[in-house]
Every structure is written in structure tokens, then in C-alpha cells.
């Protein structure tokens, strides 16, 4: 077997430190690296977040998503079982399902009308035997060998995950106790989908996963949350990681300090951040109705590699990361509440949705930050980012927010899957 396309690209870049405290720019810009990621990360031994069961509640319901850059159908079969199928006809490779969502008995390719049941099984080939013995497929054509490509699927509290790889451990093991808990925490009762937001960012997808694992930026870039006390670097918060360091929970708890409490001596001295004199005319936007047994008011759970579960106050969403090329990715956010929310709570969540997403008062900056980096690292591919807030060495839980240690956790696991040896070359 020959090495996959792009494998040579990895030899161009060095990770001088085994703890990934230096990241070569080339990992973000090289199209060959992107190609390799599709095989080794997104089709590798990981669980990709796919969708919520609440989005496809009835038999026949389906939605189109993407895993890495592969188009995938997620649907519920007649017996209620969930399936994830590559949306590509086994005949000529056309997209089988063209509607973004809907309900169907079969997926029929419009090109030559091959049809597949909701488990991906090829069930119909028009004119398979030709007409009166003329035309059609050869007699030995076996439909059973031409099903839609399937992903293995597991669910946890209504969150659907899929993997291309036979070696991926069970979902519970992959998530580990801390992150299984986070999934169950957010999906502790049936959810009601409120809607979708989509955002296309013109930068590398890993700049976004970095950003998710960098609590240090939150209190410096997102001035809305600093100013209005949602989360300040001086407040109570931190990061938790799993045994591999690949997943991350960035958290902050109720009672995060306000600018007023921080005073002039806070760490914001010398920046133009942390202004103490601005107020909202309508502060109800910031109100938090406690709804979890713990005190977390901000909990963003980043699951390796394509998902983030978001609680910003009462703004709940799951974000799916869809890489498109080395230079572009899409974030598809599914916002939700719970089935037992009353009208007032739903209204509260819809108003608080202003905080998150592409127009989010505490999140819009991420799109800008990613593009700022992506543009500036265009040259000097073997120069490096510095990742040393919170110290070097092992990746462990952080009891403060002035840290980007979890970012290193992502990269250590990434290197492992990609076959990159970090720290061998000085």
C-alpha cells in the first residue's frame, strides 16, 4: 500500500516540543495536511457528532450533514433505529438525497433512480435485467454489495455520534466519565430544537478548535462577557480535560466578577479591555435562570474533533464543525431548549440566543480572530504559534481561566492520530 495523498506534507513541519507548545503554521494552511486529516482524523478512530434525535423524531425523518467534508445522511428507519449513510449513490457517485431535511420511505437517486432503504441497503435498480434480455446489468451483479456506505452510530441521551472506523472504542469510553457527564448534563431531558445558525469562516478549522480550548482569549477578546460579568479572567472558572487531553470543558460559575469588582488593579490594566463604565439599557439579556444542579453559568464542551456543546447562561446549542478546505470551514449550530420549557422560558432562550452564533454578542469575535490568524500566517509555514499560558508539560485540568493548556491536549492527540512525532526535532 502506498502512503495516503499528503503524507509527505507532514515531513515539512516540525513540532519542536513534545507537549505541543509550538505549532507550525503549515498545519493550518497546507492542503495536503487537510487531505490527510480527512482519512486520519474524521474517518479515523474518533466519534463525530452527527445530529440530535430530536431533529429526526419520526421513522423516515432525515437530515443532511457532513462528517469532515464527506456528505452524510442521518435518518431514522421504520423500526426507529438510527443510521448514518454517506450521501453518495453506489452507482455513479451522485448525491442520493438532495433535500436538506424531510421524511421519506427510501432515498432515491434522481440520476438513474437507484433506491436505498433507510439502513442504506440498495433495494431498487430500474431495468436491472434490461428489457427482454437486452441491456441491463450483468447477471452476476449483486445488489447486496452496493449499499450506501454506512457509519457506525451510537447515541447518548439523544445526541447521535458516528464513526467511519471499526477500531473506535465505544462512545462512553471515547468520551470518558467527565465528558459523558457533560453530554448527559446538557441532554438531561428531552430537547426541543429552536432552530439553526450557520457560519462560514475563511480560515482553517483547527484555528477554531484551538479557540475553543483557549479560555485565556475569552476574557480578553470577548469584551461583552468581560464587561457584563459573564466571565472574566479574574472570575471563578477553569478547564477540564479527559485522560488523553483531547476533549475540553471550559467553564465559569455564577458570580463571575464584574468590572466594578475588579477595579483598576485587575489584570486588565494596560489593555483597553475591562472598561467599568458601560451599562446595558436592557440588562434582562444577561439574566440567568438556574437550570442545572451545578453552579456553571458557562460551559463549553469541545469534543474531539468536530463538536462543541454550548451553555452560555440559558443559551443552549450544539455546534458542528464542517471543514471544507484548509482555508474554510462551516459551523452549523443547532439551538435548543427543553420540551418542558414554558412559553416564557422559550422566549428567554430566543432572546438570549443573541449571545451566541455568528451574530453573538459574546461569540462573533471568534470568526474574526480565526481569519486574522489565517491571513497572517500565509507565509513562513515552519514558524510556530506559542502555546504556553498555564505552563508547559502535561495536559491537566486548569483551575483558572488564564490558560491555553487544553489547546496542547488537542494537538497531542491530533499528532498521535496523524502519525506526527512531536518533539523529536529541535
Amino acid at each position: 500500500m502506498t502512503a495516503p495523498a499528503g503524507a509527505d506534507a507532514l515531513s515539512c513541519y516540525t513540532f519542536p516540543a513534545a507537549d505541543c507548545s509550538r505549532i507550525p503554521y503549515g498545519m493550518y494552511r497546507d492542503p495536503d495536511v487537510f487531505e490527510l486529516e480527512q482519512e486520519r482524523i474524521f474517518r479515523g478512530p474518533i466519534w463525530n457528532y452527527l445530529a440530535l434525535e430530536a431533529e429526526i423524531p419520526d421513522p423516515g425523518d432525515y437530515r443532511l450533514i457532513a462528517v469532515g467534508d464527506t456528505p452524510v445522511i442521518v435518518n431514522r428507519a421504520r423500526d426507529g433505529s438510527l443510521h448514518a449513510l454517506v450521501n453518495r449513490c453506489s452507482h455513479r457517485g451522485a448525491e442520493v438525497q438532495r433535500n436538506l431535511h424531510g421524511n421519506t420511505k427510501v432515498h432515491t437517486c434522481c440520476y438513474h433512480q437507484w433506491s436505498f432503504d433507510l439502513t442504506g441497503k440498495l433495494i431498487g435498480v430500474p431495468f436491472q435485467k434490461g428489457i427482454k434480455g437486452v441491456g441491463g446489468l450483468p447477471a452476476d451483479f449483486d445488489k447486496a454489495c452496493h449499499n450506501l456506505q454506512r457509519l457506525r452510530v451510537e447515541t447518548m441521551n439523544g445526541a447521535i455520534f458516528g464513526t467511519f472506523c471499526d477500531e473506535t472504542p465505544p462512545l462512553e469510553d471515547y468520551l470518558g466519565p467527565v465528558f459523558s457527564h457533560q453530554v448527559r448534563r446538557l441532554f438531561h431531558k428531552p430537547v426541543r430544537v429552536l432552530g439553526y445558525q450557520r457560519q462560514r469562516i475563511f480560515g482553517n478549522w483547527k484555528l477554531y478548535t484551538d479557540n475553543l480550548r483557549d479560555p485565556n482569549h475569552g476574557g480578553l477578546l470577548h469584551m461583552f462577557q468581560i464587561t457584563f460579568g459573564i466571565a472574566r479572567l479574574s472570575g471563578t472558572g477553569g478547564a477540564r480535560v479527559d485522560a488523553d487531553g483531547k476533549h475540553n470543558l471550559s467553564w465559569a460559575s455564577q458570580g463571575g466578577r464584574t468590572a466594578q469588582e475588579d477595579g483598576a488593579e485587575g489584570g486588565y490594566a494596560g489593555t483597553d479591555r475591562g472598561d467599568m463604565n458601560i451599562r446595558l439599557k436592557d440588562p434582562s439579556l444577561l439574566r440567568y435562570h438556574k437550570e442545572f444542579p451545578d453552579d456553571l453559568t458557562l460551559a463549553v464542551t469541545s469534543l474531539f474533533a468536530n463538536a462543541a456543546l454550548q451553555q452560555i447562561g440559558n443559551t443552549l446549542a450544539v455546534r458542528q464543525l464542517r471543514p471544507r478546505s484548509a482555508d474554510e470551514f462551516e459551523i452549523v449550530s443547532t439551538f435548543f431548549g427543553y420540551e418542558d420549557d414554558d412559553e416564557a422560558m422559550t422566549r428567554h432562550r430566543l432572546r438570549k440566543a443573541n449571545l451566541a452564533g455568528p451574530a453573538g454578542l459574546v461569540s462573533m469575535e471568534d470568526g474574526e480572530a480565526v481569519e486574522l490568524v489565517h491571513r497572517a500566517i500565509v507565509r513562513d509555514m515552519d514558524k510556530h504559534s506559542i502555546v504556553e499560558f498555564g505552563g508547559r508539560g502535561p495536559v491537566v485540568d486548569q483551575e483558572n481561566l488564564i490558560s491555553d493548556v487544553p489547546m496542547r491536549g488537542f494537538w497531542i492527540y491530533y499528532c498521535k492520530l496523524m502519525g506526527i512525532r512531536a518533539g523529536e526535532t529541535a
Partner: protein
Amino acid sequence: TGTPRGVSPEMHLEVTMLFEEYGRLLDADSLEEWTTLFVPDCRYEIMSRENIEQNLPLSLMLCDSRDMLDDRVYSLREANVFNIHYDCHLIGPVRVTPQGDGWAATAAYSLFQSIQAGETRLFSVGRYHAELRRVDNVLRIVRMRVVVDTGAILTLLATPI
């Protein structure tokens, strides 16, 4: 079909000029002046056609009062970091129909964004759905729903559409 009854050229012109001003103020980054086009108990929301067609209530941006709209603008000025750009709104012919003690008005728009160095991209297309009322002899926006066909937001959505 044709011209809605009861809307004179004067009235139609007045509504068109409100839309014109709406776009012009946004393009000039006069956001504080733009919010004065709305009544105090206004509702401003940007929704994707995707959500609307699925009867999903989520907005991309939602301000259910003039105060909240002012806060959004204030936050843009003081707190948010976003891509520095110029907007250019092109607004199509406006349809005006009497509704209750005011008017309903709708128009298609296309919005182009340019960076400081003068490169332009198509940022968003869609349609305005407005409810208007005359207050103290001036036409004001009671409700503005912007339905965006371009639901996949490019980079981020900071300034209003």
C-alpha cells in the same frame, strides 16, 4: 395584483424614502441614527429562510425593544471586535399595503461588504418585511423582520442588515 389600493404615490414615496434612509444610515455606519427610525416598543429580527420554512423560531439577531436595539449598537461600538468593513445596501422596489392603523411594507435587498482596502463581496441577500406606523407625523418602524436567503453567514454578522 398591480398597485395596492389606498396607497398614493405620496405615501409610497414616503415609505420608499424610509427604506432608503434605513439603508443609507447603515452604509454610513450611522447606527445610532438608524435606531431612531424605530419606535420604542419595536421588534427587529434577522431570521434565516431555512428556519422560517421549518417553522423554527430562532433568529440570528433579535431585539424586541428599542432599548435592546440600542444596546446592540452600543455593544458594537464599545465591546465587540469584528471585521472592519463598509456596507452597501441595494434595496429593490417597495410594496406598501395598508395594515391596521399603519402599513406593511416589503422589499428585496442585496448587501455587499467591502474591506478597508476596497475589496467587495456579496454578503447577504433576502427580503425586508416591515410594519410601519406614523408617530408624531413621522413614519416609524414598528417591526422589521429581515429574512435572509444567505443563512450561512460569511465570517460573522455584526452590523445590522
